[in-house]
């Protein structure tokens, strides 16, 4: 056996499970094309996998499942009550006491309100209580605002994330790299001051992970998008990735901006994610809409391809 075959055969189990990186997958696939020994090994492993599918787990005796509930019930009744029950009961009792106290305090406080002059002096305790209530209310409000902000951020972070990993060359190619995760698409809206500097846009479009392998992948050409075009005119923006679950498919995402950025429109809408066989030659055209992507791929004369995910930017 060749030394290379050893290392390839060590990867075959992961190859079957699609857990190799894109680069490793391509290396193994290329090796398998020409190496008969490794092909046979892969075939044997796949047959073993298939054989395991005939395995049927042993069944319990008839009526076992029906009796199990009662059996467990009896067992639990014998057990001492778990300590957390006591804790729960204690905390409930405390809550009731506190509620009672609060109720009494509020009723006394409302009586005091009818005598506004000098009540603070008479009952400094109530004044303190009022202060605490006001502070709690303001703290609660600020907490709510923070939560709101956080949820907005979450939406934005679910974008198909694309950005140059290296500083962009002037007028040169933008290296489009995507991660191996299933691409999740949504739209991204620029803030009000939409005419932005390049840095601002880059901040909004991020990369999750970085797989430079894709740019080195044979047959894949990064889409040339010059900086000036990208900012001033509408343009398309594409990302490719090999899906974990089906490495035979390339997932293609297209972001397009139907309107010039300067018009303060959505930065990237609509956005489509489509999966096509790795063997396909993708001819990028100037499609600027989701339909364009789908139509373009529908015209690819191949036996099979599937649209995995298509997101409606409006609904999102």
């Amino acid at each position, binding site marked *: 056996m060749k030394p290379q075959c050893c290392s390839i055969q*060590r990867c075959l*189990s*992961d190859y*079957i*499970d699609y*857990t190799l990186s894109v680069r490793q997958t391509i290396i193994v696939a290329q090796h398998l094309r020409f190496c008969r020994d490794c092909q046979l090994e892969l*075939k*044997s*492993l*796949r*047959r*073993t*996998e*298939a*054989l*395991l*599918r*005939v*395995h*049927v*787990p*042993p*069944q*319990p*005796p*008839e009526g*076992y*499942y029906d009796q*199990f*509930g009662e*059996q*467990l*019930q009896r*067992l*639990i009744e014998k*057990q001492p009550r*778990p300590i*957390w*029950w006591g*804790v*729960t009961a204690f905390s409930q009792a405390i809550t009731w006491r506190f509620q009672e106290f609060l109720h009494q305090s509020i009723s006394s406080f409302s009586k005091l309100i009818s005598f506004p002059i000098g009540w603070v002096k008479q009952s400094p305790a109530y004044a303190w209580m009022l202060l605490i209530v006001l502070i709690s209310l303001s703290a609660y409000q600020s907490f709510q605002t923070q939560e709101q902000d956080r949820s907005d951020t979450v939406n934005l972070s679910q974008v198909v994330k694309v950005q140059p990993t290296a500083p962009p060359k002037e007028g040169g190619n933008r290296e489009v790299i995507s991660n191996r995760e299933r691409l999740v698409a949504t739209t991204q809206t620029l803030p009000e001051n939409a005419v932005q500097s390049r840095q601002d846009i880059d901040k909004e479009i991020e990369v999750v992970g970085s797989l430079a392998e894709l740019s080195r992948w044979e047959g894949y050409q990064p889409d040339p998008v010059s900086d000036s075009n990208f900012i001033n005119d509408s343009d398309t923006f594409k990302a490719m990735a090999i899906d974990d679950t*089906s490495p035979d498919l390339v997932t293609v995402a297209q972001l397009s901006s139907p309107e010039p950025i300067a018009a303060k429109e959505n930065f990237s809408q609509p956005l489509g994610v489509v999966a096509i066989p790795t063997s396909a030659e993708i001819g990028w055209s100037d499609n600027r809409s989701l339909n364009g992507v789908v139509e373009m791929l529908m015209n690819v004369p191949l036996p099979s391809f599937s649209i995995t995910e298509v997101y409606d930017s409006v609904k999102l």
Partner: protein
Amino acid sequence: MERIETLLIDELREGDMAALAILVEKYKRLVYRVAIQITKNHEDANDVMQDTFLKVYESIHSFRKDAAFETWLYRIVVNHATNLVKRRERRRESPLSSTSEMEIHPDLRRATDLANNPHLNLERKERQRWVTQAVNSLPLKQRTVVILHEFEGLTHPEIASILNCSEGTVRSRLHYARHKLKDLLKPYVDATDFPLTTKND
């Protein structure tokens, strides 16, 4: 996590036994399936079943709501079953009975007998017996990974989380287990008449 499941867990935290009954009803088959395959006999699997659901009942307050209940349950059942097997191995005890280790249970036998072709049935039974025997002959750690991955369909990260080990460890155990199984099932693997079905099929 499903909304109903979250509600059930909340109810159980408040001590509602009906919620436990529903959870038991939903997951008893899963728990038994994993337990019997790890312990290899019904009596031990029954013990594991009881211990697992008792643990759920007692430790539900420590279950984090953001985690998946099923994964948590898998962790409990796998821990109980492997501990039991290890304890038995240490004591050099033989399993209590060999009810299900090599034999096919009457229920299963009845189901297979329903099929038309007796020759195919025999072959299928024989193949099932070989596969069961091969899987049972694997070391405990490898067997557990095979059960969780091949039979339960869990992913590597899920298994790593259940077994509290790294994904690399899971992949390595799976790699060695597959090679061992390939050797053990060689006559069937080499047979050309056996239809090859892949995961995607």
